[in-house]
């Protein structure tokens, strides 16, 4: 089957070039999980790549469903030797993938061949693709969460700075004051929160733990020492916003976006991937004046949870040196041309792109990209990552806590028990 596919692709490719040359063209089989707005942009990048490498390399891309289905498919395809040549992956899932022996190491020689090096990446991002000192992926971007805000509503409540950013971003008291002012000014939900989705809230809560230097996992144990207390602190802040009527309750993801874009919620904590939604709506005249900034400092210092989209090479394929060189070229070229990828909201991982003048002119991206210095990633365990078991445990207790059904301290007790029971 694989040979058949290859032959078909080869034949099609050859038919396309028949007149030009007899030079062997490498077909790189590509899998990604990028649907929606990201997907369209990646499609564009792939087309640009193919155009720039006509007659040399062609990417044969397939988009698959995100989450457990994708990761399971990768696992089975590696087991039977039908894996793609290159695939997108989440940095948070790398520890599990390495544990399952799914990923081929990207050696220092590979990085040299790609013209990329450790210095091009933020320390936290580089660390996220590293397991036991070896790299298993090439980071494409980081996609943290940010605070979206409605400038019109903040201004009406008298909580907008002259530079167009919200007031009270440096302390819990300050931020509470902003929320209260919005409430007093008649805003239904000062903060739109995805309170019906504990998976999603993990990002916010983990960020707030990071602001107190809290860690989820130390020496293989979950929430040891005062880390449990730090999680309780983080949950208490959010639970209080619910109790004081400052945030939307039992709101799922689409409803949260709808509350914000319809002006019922004045602020929203969400992933940078919603930036294109806002940009497009604003351009069509369907959105108020808006902005996005790094999360408020509720505790000691700024900290934001992030994950990374990365490129990885699956194990188990007998790859010719020419093929591997082609795959490396794909990763290198797309990394270096990832400025366009930034329009999807993500922060390109490749430093020279975010340091460029073109990027500095992109708003609100340039404003929030400062947070790359304060990023924290998932703990390095096979249990972590999107769609992983840690997410399920957290979600189960976050939902009742954030909606006033369960006491934060009680929730943390339960979470600690279940995490250590995994």
């Amino acid at each position, binding site marked *: 089957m694989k040979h058949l596919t290859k032959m078909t692709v080869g034949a099609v490719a050859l038919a396309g070039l028949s007149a030009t040359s007899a030079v062997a063209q490498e077909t790189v089989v590509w899998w990604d999980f990028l649907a929606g707005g990201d997907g369209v942009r990646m499609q564009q990048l792939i087309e640009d790549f193919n155009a720039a490498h006509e007659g040399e390399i062609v990417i044969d891309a397939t988009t698959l469903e995100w989450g*457990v289905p994708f990761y399971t498919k990768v696992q089975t395809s590696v087991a039977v030797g039908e894996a793609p040549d290159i695939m997108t992956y989440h940095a948070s899932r790398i520890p599990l993938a390495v544990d399952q022996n799914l990923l081929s190491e990207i050696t220092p020689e590979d990085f040299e061949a790609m013209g990329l090096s450790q210095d091009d990446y933020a320390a936290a991002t580089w660390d996220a693709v590293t397991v036991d000192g070896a790299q298993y992926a090439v980071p494409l971007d980081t996609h943290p969460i940010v605070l979206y805000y409605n400038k019109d509503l903040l201004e009406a409540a008298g909580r907008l700075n002259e530079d167009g950013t919200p007031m009270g971003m440096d302390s819990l008291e300050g931020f509470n004051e902003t929320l209260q002012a919005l409430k007093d000014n008649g805003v239904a939900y000062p903060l739109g929160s995805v309170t019906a989705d504990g998976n999603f809230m993990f990002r916010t809560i983990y960020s707030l733990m990071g602001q107190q230097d809290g860690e989820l996992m130390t020496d293989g144990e979950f929430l040891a020492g005062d880390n449990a207390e730090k999680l309780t602190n983080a949950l208490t802040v959010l639970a209080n916003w619910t109790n004081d009527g400052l945030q*939307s309750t039992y709101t799922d993801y689409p*409803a949260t976006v709808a509350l914000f874009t319809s002006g019922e919620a004045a602020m929203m904590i969400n992933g940078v991937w919603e930036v294109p939604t806002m940009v497009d709506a604003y351009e069509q005249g369907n959105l108020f004046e808006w902005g996005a900034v790094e999360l408020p400092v509720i505790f000691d210092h700024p900290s934001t949870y992030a994950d990374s989209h990365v490129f990885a090479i699956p194990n188990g394929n007998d790859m010719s040196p020419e093929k591997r060189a082609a795959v490396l070229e794909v990763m290198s070229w797309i990394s270096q041309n990832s400025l366009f990828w930034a329009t999807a909201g993500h922060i390109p991982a490749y430093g020279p792109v975010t340091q460029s003048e073109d990027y500095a002119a992109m708003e609100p991206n340039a404003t929030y990209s400062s947070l790359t210095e304060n990023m924290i990633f998932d703990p390095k365990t096979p249990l972590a990552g999107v769609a992983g078991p840690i997410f399920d445990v957290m979600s189960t207790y976050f939902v*009742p806590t954030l*909606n006033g059904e369960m006491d934060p301290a009680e929730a943390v007790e339960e979470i600690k028990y279940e995490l250590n029971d995994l």
Partner: protein
Amino acid sequence: MIRDARKEWGIALLLIAPFLAIYGLVFIYPTIDMFLLSFTDAPLIGEGDYVGTENYTRLVDDRRFGTAFWNTAYFVALSVVPGTAVALFIALAVSRLSGRFQALILAMFFLPYILPVSVIYLIWDWTMNFQFGIAMHVYDLLGIERIPVFKTTTWFIPAVAFITIWWTCGFNILLFLAGLRAIPTEIYEAASLDNAGRWRTFSRVTWPLLWPITALNLTIQLILQLKIFDQVYLFSQGGRPNDNLVMVYYIFQRAFQSNQGGRAAAVAVVLFGIVIIVSVLNFQIMRLAGRKQ
């Protein structure tokens, strides 16, 4: 005619060989393999080391297994008998209609059954959406406080059971209708000549004669609902998955999320045992109940 028994055996074997081969390959062999797997610490794919009965003994103190077990039992209790009763009631009502009108009504009850589970999920998820759901506006009209149905443990299993009945009862209605049509009209005529009232006709004629169909319905439902997964998984997304666990969901978590094929197989074997025991019990009870009538 002299028959060569041995030759007939040979032909019979030859004829069923393709079936036996496929059955053995895709059913018997994987089942045996699952039993063997449950005594190892194998990941989802690949070999593991023998660990004895550890995968089973740890289930005793496993909180998620306990949740899954009781939720499954609760779901079965809320869906099997009520679902069959609802289907019987609708079938009785529909059977009183006739002609095109009957076909139309029947089609309306059958319609949800042809929808895939993902569509069912989307319809009900939006209907029950806490901010924008239509159902919530009904709550507001009636002056009841809004309930985040799929986010509370109190309402989750009952709601999923209700939706499952709404979704699947079309098929059971069809079975009951077929059963009702098979009852000869002469018996009803005789009953009415004897001045039997409606209730008496139902309890002395319809119910006993329909019993084999009812028993069949209950058995199909029981086995199906013990294996509940799709709806629970979909409605739990982002909510409180570990509070909503059912047996197959827990198998899925162990196998596909935690990459623990051995432990997942152990849970699967337990479910396998439960399904067999419950089905045999169910069959015996049905037989006894049928004999009594």
